[in-house]
């Protein structure tokens, strides 16, 4: 194609993928399949979601057994109850870590992730290395994230191959009985929601 549009990104570089996406977007707009406000709405939708949503769900489940039961049986209903709007055709299933079982989430085929709740996945989640190694050597991968499940704990890897998006409900850290729900939520990291590590311990948070 001789018609070169110069779509410079703010940093002055244009990746081939960004250029391709912009070309597709321009075509869709030109053909009237897509309207500019829809693009903006989509961007706002994605940016309004973040791991903080997951942390809120987890912290509520830690303090409220009824909510925990709902979260584990109907993730979307639980998310709606906390004001999140998980409208997405995919199912949202939350799997619980226990003293016997540790869960780890991956999507080997692409990068399926509960975006409707947590927003965009971290780059490492989409990397070929994580996607291929998480199923084959999950314990080694977790060690590299600085986490090792205690001896005797089963590791279950969930490969989100189809129409389900998974999130982990981590174990509540010890010595957190006195913490408020808000403080508990601060212990929940994005990585602990994927299962590559555990939540922070309260002492580490207070040190900053």
């Amino acid at each position, binding site marked *: 194609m001789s018609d070169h549009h110069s779509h410079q990104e703010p940093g002055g570089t244009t990746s081939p993928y960004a250029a391709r996406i912009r070309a597709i977007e321009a075509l869709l707009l030109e053909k009237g399949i897509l309207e500019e406000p829809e693009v903006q709405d989509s961007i706002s939708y994605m940016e309004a979601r973040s791991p903080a949503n997951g942390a809120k769900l987890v912290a509520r489940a830690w303090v409220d057994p009824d909510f925990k039961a709902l979260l584990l049986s109907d993730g979307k209903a639980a998310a709606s109850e906390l004001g999140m709007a998980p409208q997405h055709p995919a199912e949202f299933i939350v799997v619980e870590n226990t003293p016997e079982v540790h869960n780890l989430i991956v999507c080997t085929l692409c990068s399926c992730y509960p975006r409707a709740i947590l927003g965009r996945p971290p780059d490492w989640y989409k990397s070929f290395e994580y996607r291929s190694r998480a199923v*084959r050597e999950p314990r080694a991968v977790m060690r590299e994230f600085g986490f090792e499940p205690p001896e005797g704990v089963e590791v279950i890897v969930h490969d989100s191959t189809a129409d*389900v998006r998974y999130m982990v409900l981590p174990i509540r850290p010890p010595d957190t009985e006195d913490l408020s729900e808000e403080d508990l939520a601060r212990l929940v990291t994005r990585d602990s929601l994927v299962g590559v590590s555990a939540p922070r311990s309260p002492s580490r948070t207070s040190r900053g």
Partner: protein
Amino acid sequence: MTFEPGERVRVLPSEKPGHVRTPAYLKGKVGWVESLIGAFPNPEELAYGHSGLPERPLYKVGFRQTDLWKDYRGPAEDFLYADIYEHWLKPERGTT
């Protein structure tokens, strides 16, 4: 054909080209049906602009890691769960 939780199944070793949601490393492997997740439009047809109807049953299928990888480094009680469409599964005799 419907599968019940606990039933042993083998993932078809099909080489069907195009968009499929069955990962290569599970093809031909034996596991068990953990649960029925629900029914969804067939992604193999949705991907090409078709309706994907009728919806296909989707199962959560469990595998022993030691059955998937000969050199798996971890306990025999480590598992992998994947979501597999019914038309990729066939019954397997025997017990897990």
